[in-house]
């Protein structure tokens, strides 16, 4: 295969000008604000107070903060799990089967990417809240509460990160085609054996990549969760909601510390993703 990563050999003034603009743009938009968060995380709160790493750890050990992070982790875990299972299933359905409404389905899947998360939250409230929702009443009589509790927040997170796995897996499934699956079936493999031994190994890296992206997206989800969550400390307050609450309540140091942890998680996710890309291309 030809190497598609060719670069221009000549370096002229335009090259240097472009470089300068890109670096400046990234610095103004990304690096500088993130640096501010980092430096404030480790700065002393006031003159004479203790700063640095130990103060940062102390803020994170506050019960409301540990609660918020564990809630965020719970929501992200379930949302990613659900989206991985359904994502792979839907991807197979879209690429391997022909049925009426297939095109509509593949358009619908991208919808969560374009709809504002706040609207997603609102829609979930309308559908599931115990007072007015379509299913809310029925679920309530069965003793299940969605809105204002963890299941609702998981749903909101899952909704928002739904397309990420599918978008990674579908192109790979289309590329590998169905010949090796057909070959496996003529060799005697049943549907599950084909999936586990042929299809899954071929899409492995795409699934992992999608999972990491979903995880990063789920950890940082704010708008949709904010609407369906009670949003009070120790009651439905996720890490992102905590950051907003603390920041507006003049407890900036805690907000910075929590924000720093989220930044760290995203950077970690990006590192993992770039490592996967490398693995995938080798």
């Amino acid at each position: 295969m030809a190497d598609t990563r060719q670069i221009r050999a000549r370096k002229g003034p335009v090259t240097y000008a472009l470089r300068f603009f890109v670096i400046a743009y990234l610095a103004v938009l990304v690096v500088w604000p993130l640096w501010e968060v980092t430096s404030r995380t480790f700065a002393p709160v006031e003159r004479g107070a203790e700063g640095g790493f130990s103060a940062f750890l102390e803020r994170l050990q506050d019960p409301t903060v540990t609660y918020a992070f564990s809630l965020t982790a719970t929501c992200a875990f379930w949302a990613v799990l659900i989206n991985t299972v359904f994502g792979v299933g839907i991807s197979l359905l879209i690429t391997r089967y022909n049925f009426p409404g297939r095109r509509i389905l593949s358009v619908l899947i991208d919808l969560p990417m374009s709809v504002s998360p706040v609207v997603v939250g609102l829609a979930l409230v309308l559908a599931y809240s115990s007072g007015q929702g379509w299913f809310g009443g029925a679920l309530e009589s069965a003793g299940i509460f969605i809105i204002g509790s963890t299941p609702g927040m998981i749903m909101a997170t899952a909704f928002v990160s739904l397309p990420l796995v599918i978008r990674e897996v579908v192109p790979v499934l289309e590329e590998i085609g169905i010949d090796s699956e057909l070959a496996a079936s003529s060799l005697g493999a049943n549907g599950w054996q084909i999936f586990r031994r042929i299809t899954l190994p071929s899409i492995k890296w795409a699934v992992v990549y999608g999972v990491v992206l979903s995880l990063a997206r789920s950890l940082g989800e704010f708008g949709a969760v904010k609407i369906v969550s009670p949003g009070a400390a120790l009651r439905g307050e996720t890490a992102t909601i905590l950051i907003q609450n603390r920041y507006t309540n003049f407890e900036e140091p805690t907000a910075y510390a929590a924000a720093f942890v989220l930044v760290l998680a995203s950077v970690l996710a990006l590192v993992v993703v770039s490592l996967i890309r490398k693995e995938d291309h080798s």
Partner: protein
Amino acid sequence: MSIEVRGVGKRYGDFVALDDINVSLPTGQLTALLGPSGGGKSTLLRIIAGLETADSGSVEIEGVDATKLPPQKRNVGFVFQHYAVFKHMTVAKNVAFGLEIRKRPKAEVKAKVAELLELVHLSQFAHRLPSQLSGGQRQRLALARALAVEPSVLLLDEPFGALDAKVRKELRDWLRRLHDDVHVTTVFVTHDQEEALEVADEIVVINEGRIEQIGSPDQLYDEPANDFVMGFLGAVTQLGPVRLRPHDIEVAVQPGVPGAAAGVVQRALRVGFEVRLTVDVEGQAEPALVVLSRAHARALDLELGSRVWLSPTTGATSVPLLGEVSA
């Protein structure tokens, strides 16, 4: 009979891929399904394998009605044009796949894989990944994988279509020898008449969803059932009221043969050992094509503008011209 196809039809929307196909393929034979692209031959093969379902008709394999059976229950080996090897498995694992699915004992699997890799000359590559093999090697791997499960029929869909001309010819000879050794009922699809004539015991010519003729290579070549079969199996030209092969035309530089058509050499093209002449025949719209050996052409001292008299050789295969009452 190993494979019995009765009344099979298949449509894609308005397009008729197969129209009432009836064919029976005897056990142990190497049969070619020959025809132009889009003629339905691949569809028929995939229906036999169970990779496609027929709209009507039935398929019987080794006396068992397989019409409703899923592919994994038909015990057929299928080889794809683009190999369809399992990219993430080593060569040995690829071959072992069908046996492992059938939960055969480890020792038996190992012995069988070694035997098959020996058969397809890939023993030294057992621990490589398919991406490290050439196209011809991948196709041999696919063949070994299909043979591993000891299928009652082996089906090959344009098996050499993706290979370059030289490898293609080698694999063709190799397949013929392999079949003589293994004797599994084999059906392969091809659009290359030379491939079919060279390799197959029997050829089924399929065009536009219908069977045009079934017969041995010699029968098809010598007694084509119609104009299509004649044209598909080799070059054809027109001389007077009949169509015949360019090498079945006798060239004379003097009149004398009764019924010979007079003409003028318009063009002479030498390709390797043969000379192809384009002759403008009197009273005929289309010029006639004649092929003769280089030595023969030299002996006749032919050049552009030479007057020649053309007549069919004795025993020439010919069919009457389409749309005309035969003379």
